[in-house]
């Protein structure tokens, strides 16, 4: 039985305890359990089964309030997240308009004065259940940004170090894409065929060509061909709901079941990790956690502790792991723990394409995500630099003839009609609206970091994080460039943008953290004094504690982090196994 009640753990000591069950924790558990190591996974949320809980084919009318966003389900009723911008009883602390500290609340990420938003999933599989499945590789320049333009920091590893692990991840998770031979957007040898583009995407591709912006197949962890035990996409039901047929990558369908099958993985859900425990020699002995069902403190012993709780949750656990030996938190000897917090920049712009009006009816669901996207082009890089934006972004989009929601028939363009005229106009305009968005690189800065709030604790008595976060002028200039490019793209596709480029790009930027690419608070480094972990994610100060999640990232390029988290977690787990075999890893008595 893989799922344990807490009482059963007392009898055992594990080779590794893994905190978290998403991309990082799921991959760590999978690789270690497959190799024969005894692993215990702690998940702060409940057990979750995509096979029986995923709303496949449900319409918005089958949901309360037609599935719209509510404070409890901020991405809509069907979003495969238990949690979101707030978790009952588990506050975090932010600043509003640069003023005093307050608890983070549910916000519109484009309109808030809240400096940071923190998305948490409290469920088995974590955020992999709902995430966008954008699987991009970081390129050679992304690992060496400082060497490239003098800004930010270089990783202690290069693309060549990670490439073999990207290959393994791609083969295992499956993804679609096209071979393009771009200099900083490496291809995968395992691309499955991408889906046919939709009509509006073809118009954007044609428009992009006029602007010198290549529009290519998107790279998504969604199967278009079967893999063992997994069906390919049947081109219906949005991926954000999760997938009961396992056509997209989800830790709960792809990583955890085979790990359980080995018989080497135990899982405790509703287990809120509090701190890593240390012996007199400064080695980790295990993890203290709260059983959320009983409120009782528990401890589990292990030879190694792997943190995969999400960057800021892992950072919080380390900051809370204070002892006489490590008074500033575990792994904080260099003073870098909690620093260099980044998120992707984001902004969007809508438009309408008259050529799509009264389109012959056809099904445009596809894989629910974009089938094409626009990686950062050399042409964009030149003009962005001239505007003061040294780093890039990619553009993607949504739109077309998607499953109707509460807003489908209400854009201003349809006019204030009612009756038969409204029905005719709704039909005419259906599928003609598009929304371009971009995700861009933020350069780490001194003013963006997390620390523990000096007073507030969560329901379990655990000190909570508070967030400092500021975009720099680089990011603001980048968003200004995005907006200008959106307008050009929509117009080049024959469309009408809803708005001109804004006078102040800050007004159309997403709030920090709200793109959910928050990383960097336990960054890796070549030398102990420059970071928290070595290039394998081992704490410099305590090498039998490893960070497997996005905390170890040194830069946050315009490549969604999950694919890189998976690759680094696999690489790290193999490294840990080799150390365990050699007996060099500290093993508590």
């Amino acid at each position, binding site marked *: 039985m893989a799922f344990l009640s807490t009482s059963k753990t007392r009898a055992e000591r594990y080779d590794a305890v893994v905190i978290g069950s998403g991309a990082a924790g799921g991959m760590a558990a999978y690789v270690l359990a497959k190799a024969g190591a005894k692993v215990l996974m702690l998940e702060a949320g409940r057990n979750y089964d995509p096979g029986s809980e995923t709303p496949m084919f449900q319409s918005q009318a089958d949901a309360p309030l037609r599935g719209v966003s509510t404070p409890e389900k901020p991405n809509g009723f069907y979003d495969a997240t238990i949690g979101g911008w707030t978790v009952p009883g588990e506050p975090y602390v932010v600043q509003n308009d640069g003023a005093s500290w307050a608890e983070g609340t549910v916000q519109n990420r484009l309109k808030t004065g809240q400096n940071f938003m923190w998305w948490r999933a409290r469920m088995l599989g974590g955020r992999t259940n709902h995430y966008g499945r954008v699987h991009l590789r970081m390129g050679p320049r992304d690992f060496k940004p400082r060497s490239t333009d003098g800004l930010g920091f270089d990783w202690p590893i290069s693309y060549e170090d990670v490439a073999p692990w990207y290959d393994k991840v791609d083969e295992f998770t499956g993804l679609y894409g096209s071979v393009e031979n771009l200099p900083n957007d490496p291809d995968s040898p395992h691309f499955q065929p991408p889906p046919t583009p939709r009509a509006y995407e073809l118009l954007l591709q044609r428009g992009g060509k006029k602007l010198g912006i290549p529009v290519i197949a998107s790279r998504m962890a969604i199967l278009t061909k079967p893999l063992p035990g997994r069906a390919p996409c049947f081109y219906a039901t949005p991926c954000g*709901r999760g997938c009961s047929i396992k056509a997209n990558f989800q830790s709960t369908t792809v990583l955890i079941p085979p790990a359980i099958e080995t018989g080497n993985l135990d899982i405790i859900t509703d287990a809120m990790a509090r701190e890593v425990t240390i012996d007199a020699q400064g080695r980790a002995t295990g993890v203290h956690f709260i059983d959320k069902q009983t409120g009782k403190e528990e401890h589990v012993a292990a030879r190694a502790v792997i943190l995969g709780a999400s960057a800021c949750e892992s950072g919080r656990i380390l900051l809370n792991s204070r002892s006489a030996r490590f008074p500033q938190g575990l792994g904080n000897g260099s003073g870098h723990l909690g620093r260099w917090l980044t998120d992707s920049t984001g902004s969007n712009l809508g438009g309408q394409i008259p050529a799509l009006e009264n389109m012959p009816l056809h099904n445009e669901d596809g894989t629910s995500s974009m089938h094409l996207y626009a990686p950062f082009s050399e042409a964009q890089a030149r003009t962005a630099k001239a505007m003061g934006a040294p780093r890039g972004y990619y553009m993607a989009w949504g739109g077309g003839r998607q499953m109707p929601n509460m807003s489908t028939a209400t854009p201003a363009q349809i006019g204030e009609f009612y009756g038969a005229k409204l029905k005719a106009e709704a039909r005419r305009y259906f599928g003609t609206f598009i929304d371009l968005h971009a995700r861009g690189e933020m350069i780490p800065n001194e003013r963006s970091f997390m620390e523990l709030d000096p007073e507030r604790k969560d329901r379990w008595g655990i000190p909570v994080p508070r967030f400092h976060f500021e975009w720099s002028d680089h990011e603001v200039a980048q968003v200004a460039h995005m907006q200008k490019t959106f307008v050009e793209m929509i117009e080049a596709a024959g469309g009408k943008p809803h708005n001109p480029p804004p006078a102040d790009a800050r007004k159309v930027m997403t709030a920090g953290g709200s793109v959910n690419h928050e990383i960097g608070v336990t960054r890796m480094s070549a030398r102990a004094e420059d970071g928290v972990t070595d290039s394998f994610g081992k704490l410099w100060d305590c090498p039998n504690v490893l960070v497997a999640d996005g905390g170890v990232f040194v830069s946050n390029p315009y490549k969604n982090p999950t694919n890189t988290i998976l690759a680094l977690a696999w690489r790290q787990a193999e490294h840990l196994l080799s150390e365990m075999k050699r007996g060099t890893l500290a093993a508590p008595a």
Partner: protein
Amino acid sequence: MNASLPTVSVPRSLSRREAIQQILAVTALASTLNLRGFAAELNPPGIGFDPNLLKKEIPWPRLLTDAEKRTVTALCDLIIPADEFGPAASAVGVPDFIDEWVSAPYEQQVKDRAIIRTGIVWLEREAQTRFGKGFADSAGAQQSEILEAIVTEGTDARKQGRAFFKLMRDRVAGGYYTTREGWAAIGYTGNVPLVDFPGPPPEALAHAGLA
């Protein structure tokens, strides 16, 4: 702190709902926690943080009176009448959806409730003034006369009724086009499993100038 702790046996027979209720009970006792925002969402009950996604359960009571519901129903069918593309809004449950919507405990819906209830009062008074009877009891042409006045620039009715009518129209259209009948009426043909995704057919490519 990591000395051996007492063994705890955890009951595993709890349903999720019971477990959540337990957690809420624990939460209510916790002294360190600021519960204001959370409590506001629970009274009256909302959807909850962990609803069953396969089942539509509306935990809040419907608030519209029978009289309000009659006005809403009349408005629904003026906004979405039956035609060759599909049935009228009332035939697919949109009036009840409006009741579900305006009765919900969330900020947006509470705001909508105030606008819609005030608008209904205004609409009824307008019908009484013009025709000597309530809006729902007025003839179709009379009802349309009021709506035409609302959507026509420069009228008093527009000044007073526009925000209400626009909101009502948006919610009714949203409620309607999210039903399967609404899908057919707007021309949505997806949500069906396909072996392959064919992309746009030749006539669609030609229509968009992509052929």
